[in-house]
């Protein structure tokens, strides 16, 4: 067999690849799967809001409660009120779609703001923000949420707002860390010296060039967390409330019958959660290694 050097010697012509072939297959698969999930989510959101559903998710059927998948036209069976699981799964995503966005955007916006203030301005800002972050960090989160819920009402938006807020410190310190790093490499000073307007430095050079991957990952993780948090709350009875379906309260109400052997009513939504969250996590991973250009062999 020839050695690669011989081969390399023979090969004169060089061809450039289309971009999708430049990256590691694994990453592309991850991102692909992630995007698939995202599209599914969006699709079912649209289906739900346009009301193009196999059945009415609110239609009760007291004769056919906790039916296993496939029973009389219920593709995924029925829940504890004989409502169609499939329809409710599809509508269920609405519980997370916009609220999740809210949580994420709150976390990202405030987070970046704080982060930039702390890292870029530093000094007093930094101290105040670190304090606020630590403050948020040191709360028993679930208890906090319960009290907030009590004060207002068990509304998914309220919950997600809190979730978003509690994630601000993470993003903030990430961005701050990045900025400190850039500072010590004197990139920022260089920009300032070159008279680049602060806005450009922060928005373009710092956030766009150096923080986008962080932010994207945080976004994907944020969505995943939003879903899990709602599920946990549902278990305690404070998640999205009936009759509005959410994957969380579906798992919860189904789980009451798990020990009694009716396996599906809780498993189906649980799997939905699993695949979705997995999707977001992998999307994050893939995008990360693509944006950071991490090489694998």
């Amino acid at each position, binding site marked *: 067999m020839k050695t690669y*050097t011989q081969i*390399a010697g023979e*090969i004169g012509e060089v*061809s450039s*690849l289309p971009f999708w072939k430049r*990256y590691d297959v694994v990453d592309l698969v991850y991102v692909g799967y992630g995007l698939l999930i995202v599209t599914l989510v969006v699709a079912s959101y649209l289906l739900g809001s346009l009301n193009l559903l196999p059945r009415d998710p609110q239609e009760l059927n007291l004769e056919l409660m906790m039916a296993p998948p496939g029973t009389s036209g219920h593709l995924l069976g029925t829940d504890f009120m004989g409502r169609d699981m499939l329809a409710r799964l599809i509508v269920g995503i609405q519980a997370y779609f916009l609220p999740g966005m809210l949580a994420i955007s709150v976390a990202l916006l405030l987070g970046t703001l704080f982060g930039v203030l702390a890292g870029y301005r530093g000094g007093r800002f930094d101290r105040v923000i670190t304090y606020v972050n630590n403050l948020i960090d040191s709360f028993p989160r679930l208890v906090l949420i319960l009290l907030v819920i009590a004060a207002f009402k068990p509304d998914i938006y309220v919950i997600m707002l809190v979730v978003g807020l509690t994630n601000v410190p993470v993003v903030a310190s990430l961005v701050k860390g990045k900025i400190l790093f850039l500072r010590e490499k004197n990139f920022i000073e260089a920009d300032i010296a070159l008279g680049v307007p602060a806005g450009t430095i922060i928005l373009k050079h710092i956030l766009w060039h150096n923080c986008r991957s962080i932010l994207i990952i945080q976004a994907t993780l944020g969505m995943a967390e939003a879903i899990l948090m709602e599920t946990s709350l549902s278990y305690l009875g404070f998640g999205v409330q009936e009759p509005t379906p959410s994957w969380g309260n579906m798992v919860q109400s189904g789980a009451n019958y798990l020990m009694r052997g009716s396996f599906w009513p809780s498993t189906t939504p649980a799997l939905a959660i699993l695949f979705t969250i997995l999707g977001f996590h992998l999307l994050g991973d893939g995008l990360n290694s693509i944006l950071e250009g991490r090489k694998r062999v």
Partner: protein
Amino acid sequence: MTNEALLSVEGLRTYFFSRGKRAFIRSVDDVSLTIAQGETLGVVGESGSGKSITALSVMGLISDGPGVISGSIKFKSNGMERAFLQDLDRFVSVETTEGRIMSVKKDVPAWDRHVGQLMDGIRGRELAMIFQNPKSSLNPFTTIGKQITEAIRLHSDGMTEQEAKERALAWLDRVKIDSPRLRFDNHPYGLSGGMCQRVMVAMALACEPSLLIADEPTTGLDATIQAKIVDLLAELKSELGTAIMLISHDIGIIARLADSVAVMYGGTVVESGPARDIVTRNAASKHPYTAALMASIPSERNIREKKQLQAIEGDVLDTINIPAGCRFFARCNQVTDGIREKCERREPDLREIAPRHRVRCWLYFE
């Protein structure tokens, strides 16, 4: 100066596979060098000419990523002889379809293990290296003292902690670090770049290796410090008789320290020979590229002759698709019509035109 070759590099090729371009970047392409005991070889060339990669290849530090090496590197020193590149090919396989490289599979862990075995007892003991930007090359989490002591103890068996420490201190003193005992417990961040480089030197020489590879030891330091480091190297060289492979783009430094010189361009050696024949002031250096380099350094002579400094026109060579002919052809300003044909078509080989003085240029071959 004995003529016995300490390190001899034959036809060294270090390629990196570019996934995007689906081709090899031929950073080092057919390089041959020899360093004799106690000799100082200066490797000069503009950045991107493959100097550092050559050095790293010799150290066996081209492991992670798609880097692959071939050729032969032989190292012979007090009795032991090693061939660093022995059957590394085993760990690499290349897929090609119609003249294109589809992918390069490299079993990194196995490769590393193998290199580890090959270099066992050599790295740090017989072969030491100092790098550019010394600050980040020192482990920021341990005191410099510990780092030096570690190096010493690794390679001198049966030495007690205390002896090692004493020796480390001695070395710190020797590389002219003031109040070594205080410094000993410093972490690198407490030190200036210059000091860090001194520490690196101390660490490298602590086990009296037979060859020291200094990769751009002065870049990134300010001028005065540069001078100091160079002095230090010169001094140590004469004291220890350690062979040095000095890599720099700064001809001044090379001229100052090197016994012999190799000029690299586009991943290969274009001229090599005794320093006096090549980089000394009134040496008539042969290869057009070398000439250009010489012309580009500020010296009274240059200033006197042509009022202003010359820069070399044209860009650094693209090491992916290397032209069939002479690599310097595109930028060469001495091509005569007689040889233009050859220059463009066929790459010249490295020929001896005077004792121990080789040039890779059609101008001198007939």
